[in-house]
């Protein structure tokens, strides 16, 4: 096919390309030899935040963004960190592993010095090595799978272990004799169910059940749940399927207590389950501003940033993540990874809205701050019932 002359031509073309490549290489510093993000030492310190702004969890992205922005505004008003202002850079991870890896790399490329994002555990997990390799300390506000623990990141939200412990404490308090734990096969839900079962101790977990959250008919599952004649049901999944499940449980004749995990603590739960079925339902949750003394002032400040929108789940946790990271950088006196990590580990009883914060050696939050809430507020909103103390 190729004659001798074309072969020469091809060689020439290759040579020309190689030459131009060499030229480009010598001219540019942004290439292979450059790379990596180094702190220039002046200008604002950038905090990166990965959160879902698209997809089914899109609403949480805004809740987290405004919470982080409020904290950054407050820190800047107090003179910033080490004399430098903070700046928030957000990226959409769409709650998807592939997209979150791209987004995390984008943040690294943008030169962020700290990460204060992470909502979906599955999407946060693959970003951990990216941030740690780039020397960026990570404080995760929302994602709380136990798999995240001990990998160098710090977690504001209580882990499944701590939430499981809170649920066990509550079940013990109610004197439950036969407990059924139901999960929805998602990462967070199974994790929580496992943690509950492991810590149950003397409590009798008579049945574990899993439902497919894409379906609407759980009658077959409920049949086996009722076969264990439970007096306490712990649902660890999200509210969409949770509402249906509670409704069908009630129709099938179960009227005992139902405890739900924080994925189901949402006003929609009552709407989906229906007014009769929601009776005797409680949830485990970390404190939200409206449960706190002085929380109203915080909500007002939040509305000033968000343009009037109410704070949602994890607004406050993201706010706290920024505050914690800024404090650690202040104490370390730099944005250096080792120094900031050491400062984060050294925080003792740092005062936050949700209670004092100390990180355990594995990066999770000591105590976790879980309380029991019930959906008796306006329109099914959850309000504090028992602080388990």
């Amino acid at each position, binding site marked *: 096919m190729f004659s001798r002359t074309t072969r020469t031509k091809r060689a020439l073309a290759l040579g020309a390309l190689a030459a131009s490549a060499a030229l480009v290489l010598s001219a540019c510093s942004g290439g292979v030899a450059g790379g990596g993000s180094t702190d220039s030492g002046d200008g604002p310190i950038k905090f990166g935040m990965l959160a879902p702004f698209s997809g089914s969890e899109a609403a949480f992205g805004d809740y987290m963004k405004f919470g982080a922005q409020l904290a950054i505004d407050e820190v800047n008003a107090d003179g910033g960190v080490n004399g430098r202002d903070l700046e928030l850079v957000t990226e959409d991870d769409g709650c998807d592993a592939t997209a979150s890896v791209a987004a995390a790399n984008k943040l690294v490329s943008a030169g962020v010095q700290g990460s204060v994002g992470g909502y979906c555990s599955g999407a946060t997990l693959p970003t951990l090595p990216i941030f740690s390799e780039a020397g960026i300390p990570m404080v995760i506000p929302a994602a709380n799978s136990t798999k995240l623990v001990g990998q160098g990141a710090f977690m504001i939200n209580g882990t499944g272990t701590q939430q499981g412990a809170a649920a066990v404490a509550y079940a013990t308090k109610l004197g439950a004799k036969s407990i059924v734990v139901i999960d929805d096969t998602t990462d967070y839900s199974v994790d929580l169910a496992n943690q509950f079962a492991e810590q149950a101790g003397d409590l009798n977990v008579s049945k574990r*059940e899993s*439902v497919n959250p*894409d379906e609407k008919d759980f009658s077959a599952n409920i049949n086996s749940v009722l076969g264990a004649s439970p007096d306490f049901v712990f649902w660890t999944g999200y509210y969409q399927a949770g509402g249906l499940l509670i409704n069908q449980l009630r129709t099938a004749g179960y009227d005992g207590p139902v405890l739900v995990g924080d994925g189901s603590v949402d006003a929609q739960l009552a709407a989906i389950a*229906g007014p009769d079925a929601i009776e005797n339902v409680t949830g485990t949750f970390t404190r939200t501003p409206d449960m706190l003394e002085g929380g109203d002032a915080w909500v007002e400040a939040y509305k000033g940033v968000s343009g009037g929108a109410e704070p949602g789940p994890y607004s406050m946790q993201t706010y706290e993540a920024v505050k914690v990271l800024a404090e650690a950088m202040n104490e370390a006196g730099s944005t250096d990874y080792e120094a900031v990590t050491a400062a984060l580990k050294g925080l003792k009883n740092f005062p936050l809205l949700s209670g004092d914060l100390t990180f355990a050696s594995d990066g999770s939050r000591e105590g976790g701050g879980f309380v029991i809430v019930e959906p008796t507020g306006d329109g099914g909103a959850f309000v504090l019932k028992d602080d388990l103390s």
Partner: protein
Amino acid sequence: MFQLIWNGLFVGSFYALVALGYSMVYGIIKLLNFAHGDLYMLGSFLAFVVLGGFTGLFGLGSIPILLLVLLITMLLTGGIGVLIERVAYRPLRSSPRLAALITAVGVSFTLEYAVRQIFGASPLVFPIRLQGAPIEVLGARITMPQLILMLVAAVLMFLLQRYIMHSREGRAMRAIALDQKASLLMGVNVNRVISRTFFIGSALAGAAGVMAAAYYGTIDFLMGFVIGLKAFTAAVIGGIGNLYGAMLGGLVLGLLESFGTHFLGGQWRDVFAFGFLILFLVFKPTGILGERVVERV
């Protein structure tokens, strides 16, 4: 035990209603209408909109209003089914089967994500919810709404059976299923009959959607995906293209799932159902009632 059977039959009657439309369309133009499950979803959303208007006019919903809404929704989804056939499938009727299948996937995506863009991704709470105290029959809990819904499903299936087996248009449908060209030569208006098939199949899916929405209480844009797959499985188990087969397949699949969940655990429910689909295709590809089908070239 009886509870398991009852649950299976109840879920199975939904599968059967959706499977009927699947099976009819497949029997007549050999098209696997991938978007069929999404018409079920569309039915529930249309009923949601229509009910919104109704409750504004007549106050709170009740069973008669729900039946009226059911009728309106069936007409609307039927019309949309005809429209889909006209716009997307008819131009491709003589194309290779791959093209038609891909179009069907495209239609399915279009319906799902158009609804998502309009109504959002979170589930909506349906304004009417059928609730009732359970009655104990032979140790199984049966509620009034369940009985009513199964009765409606049975009536719809009975009417369809009368229509296809005993009416002139039904005979035309069966003729096209046997040989499209020959029926064209015998004076059957093929296009009109195919449109009518789509109308009936889509209306049944829409009816199932409304009933499911009223019974379970929430609707979301992906609710048709799983049931579409299950309905296809039901149609294959019963024998695709066969009217009685679709009904029987739906009930059998419902029972299989009910027992499978009981003995294997809920997380394996779908694996169980699809595993059965593959097993049936290996050992009895014609289904329980189907006849041997020769691939048309």
